[in-house]
């Protein structure tokens, strides 16, 4: 048996560097602190790669399946013999895969940030927060029990909050960070309720016993009924609410576009590749419970995912801020992953959706991080976020142009780029289970190709704008991560996921079905083609279409007015109708009673304080006459 206890250092090294940079960062030169943070991540990255190699290729399989290993464990709080909160490291296919994804992207982003954040105020603060985030995210994926996951879940929320509000002198950044924190916090309330219901019914937090086929969670089945759904279903719906908040699923999606106020590397790391897929990871982690004990909850997951992917894709077509386009595209792609989980079954070829979801998570991390980093390089060059102020950049930024194009092909699903393979598996899984959802996703695939190439053409083609200074290619320290991630975006699709990450850890046979693959390639090409006609050269076609769509376009441009709706609900209804009367009651009735008590006490004591006059002889007189009166009373008057 191989000792995996070193894996705990993958998690601890970023923590150590966070403390180091957080406390002593201002002692170093900015560049030095950047290099320190990056080298720390490099060590974690190497350790993760070694772990993955050991886990997938060296550790003996148990009955053909990858085992679930507890590499390290310590009991933290013990309630009963089965119900205790541990801190530890759980290794199974999805957590090992996530280790690779997180450390790779995080390392690339660290490297990129050395160049991108150059000259910014708070350079070492940025790197310490990045380390904190990496620590929390790693802790989340290796959690051995749901409570440890919840702790790190909140920690990633905090580090996301800190990083979105990194430019805390900008009002919009502060508002965005608060919005992100409050919305995800609200969702986490659901997660916590779900955890409590789950732990009350199953008496355990531990993932291994929760997902064990003979364990208490799965043995329950869907027997106990409450409002027509079983207890496990309710708890899974609440847990999914937490996941939906983190993964910006409809209707808790409103925070993600605003989160683009943070520095671009942060958007790449947190709001594209890692943190936002935590919700997907959570559902995947609890997957056996969803499938066996809570099929209704799984249906909810599927429909929420499908709706979000369509909804976000439509909005993405109308936005002009390039980072927002990417944010909506992220939501759309996460919707894909959720959908794939939702239509999946358990075991063998039935679990195709599960495998496809994890596969898409893996490939998406590469090309979406690449897209964001390219966007960062573009913004770095032209100092604007708006595609209307860009154009003709392909000559000025050759490397960025090429890598961006690769990423666009990958996300559009053109073979042999990574996105094609994973998206194809998702469509195949959807086709087998639910034709309606398959149709939606098929359309979304086309829309995705369209808006990605709209973005591409508006940035790199079209008429050249007047820039304040001639755009120039980013320094090498920024382009190297772009190139490395581009290699990832090309090759990640070749990883044989059906042999590595499956719902029951058993490999199964899977081939690309041409009946599914060819139509999806065609619709992607159709989207690309329309985008080429519209945006390759400047035409008035887009305006015409816009006018034809009329109010639908306006609604999509305003993100279907969800921000306004939520603002109306909270401000007009919650604040004015509920909070104001409650505040009035508190101020006038509750406080009034307390004030009345204090007023009475005050006036009474004002009256009687005169007794303490400071006149010694008065005290003595009272004492003597009191003594005499007592003597008189007890000796002569009160004789028994």
């Amino acid at each position, binding site marked *: 048996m191989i000792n995996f206890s070193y894996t705990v250092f993958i998690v601890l090294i970023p923590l150590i560097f966070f403390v180091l940079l957080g406390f002593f960062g201002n002692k170093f030169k900015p560049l030095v602190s950047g290099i320190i943070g990056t080298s720390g991540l490099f060590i974690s990255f190497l350790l993760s790669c070694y772990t993955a190699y050991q886990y997938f290729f060296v550790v003996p399989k148990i009955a053909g399946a990858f085992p679930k290993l507890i590499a390290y464990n310590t009991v933290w709080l013990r309630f009963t013999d089965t119900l205790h909160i541990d801190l530890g490291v759980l290794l199974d296919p999805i957590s090992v895969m996530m280790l690779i994804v997180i450390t790779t992207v995080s390392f690339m982003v660290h490297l990129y940030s050395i160049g991108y954040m150059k000259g910014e105020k708070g350079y070492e603060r940025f790197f310490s927060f990045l380390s904190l985030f990496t620590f929390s995210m790693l802790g989340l994926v290796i959690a051995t029990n749901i409570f440890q996951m919840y702790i790190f879940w909140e920690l990633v929320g905090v580090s996301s909050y800190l990083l979105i509000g990194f430019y805390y002198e900008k009002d919009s950044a502060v508002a965005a960070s608060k919005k992100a924190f409050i919305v995800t916090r609200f969702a986490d309330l659901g997660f916590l309720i779900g955890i409590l219901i789950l732990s009350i019914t199953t008496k355990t937090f531990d993932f291994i016993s929760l997902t064990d086929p003979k364990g208490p969670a799965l043995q329950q089945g869907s027997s106990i009924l409450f409002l027509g759904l079983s207890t496990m279903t309710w708890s899974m719906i609440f847990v999914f609410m937490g996941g939906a908040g983190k993964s910006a699923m409809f209707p808790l999606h409103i925070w993600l576009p605003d989160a683009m106020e943070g520095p671009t590397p942060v958007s790449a790391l947190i709001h594209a590749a890692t943190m936002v897929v935590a919700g997907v990871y959570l559902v995947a982690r609890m997957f056996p419970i969803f499938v066996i004990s809570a099929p209704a909850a799984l249906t909810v997951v599927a429909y929420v995912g499908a709706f979000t992917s369509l909804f976000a894709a439509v909005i993405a077509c109308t936005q002009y801020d390039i980072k927002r386009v990417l944010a909506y595209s992220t939501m759309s792609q996460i919707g894909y992953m959720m959908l794939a989980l939702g239509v999946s079954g358990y075991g063998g070829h039935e679990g195709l959706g599960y495998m496809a979801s994890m596969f898409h998570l893996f490939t998406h991390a590469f090309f979406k991080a690449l897209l964001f980093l390219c966007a960062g390089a573009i913004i770095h060059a032209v100092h604007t976020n708006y595609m209307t102020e860009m154009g003709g950049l392909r000559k000025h930024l050759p490397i960025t142009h090429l890598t961006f194009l690769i990423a666009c092909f990958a996300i559009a699903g053109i073979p042999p780029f990574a996105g094609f393979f994973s998206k194809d598996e998702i469509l195949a899984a959807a086709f087998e289970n639910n034709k309606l959802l398959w149709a939606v996703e098929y359309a979304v695939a086309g829309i995705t190709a369209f808006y990605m190439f709209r973005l591409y053409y508006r940035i790199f083609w079209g008429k050249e704008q007047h820039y304040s200074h001639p755009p120039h290619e980013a320094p090498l320290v920024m382009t190297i991560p772009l190139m490395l991630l581009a290699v990832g975006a090309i090759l990640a699709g070749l990883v044989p996921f059906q042999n590595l990450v499956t719902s029951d850890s058993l490999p199964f046979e899977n081939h690309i079905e041409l009946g599914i693959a060819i139509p999806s390639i065609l619709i992607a090409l159709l989207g690309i083609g329309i985008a080429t006609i519209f945006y390759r050269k400047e035409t008035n076609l887009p305006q015409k279409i816009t006018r034809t769509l009329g109010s639908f376009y306006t609604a999509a441009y305003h993100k279907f007015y969800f921000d306004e709706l939520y603002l109306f609900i909270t401000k007009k209804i919650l604040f004015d109708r509920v909070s104001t009367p409650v505040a009035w009651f508190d101020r006038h009735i509750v406080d009034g009673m307390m004030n009345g008590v204090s007023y009475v006490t005050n006036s009474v004591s004002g009256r009687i304080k005169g007794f303490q006059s400071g006149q*010694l002889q008065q005290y003595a007189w009272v004492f003597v006459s009191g003594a005499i009166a007592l003597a008189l009373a007890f000796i002569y008057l009160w004789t028994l």
Partner: protein
Amino acid sequence: MFEGVPLTWFLIVATIMFFIGIYGFLVRKNLITILMSLELILNSVNINFVAFNKLLYPQHMEGMFFTVFVIAVAAAEASVAIAIIINIYRRLINIDVERIDEMKY
């Protein structure tokens, strides 16, 4: 064995002296005169001790010893009191008990 004067007479004299001391304590303003009233009170108690000792238990010496100790305590008390009075006088330039009332409320 003591002839001629009954115990009650001693006690009555001591009581009168005691309450004269009380009266002085209650009406005098000057701190030193209050201290003198206090000496009267202690002295009346001493008379009681001695009288009880002599007339009721002549075979023992408790009353006398207690008187000795009371005198010692009185001496200690007088010295500390006078130190305090001098200190107060130095700060406030008067030792009128009615005007030393900084500690009220």
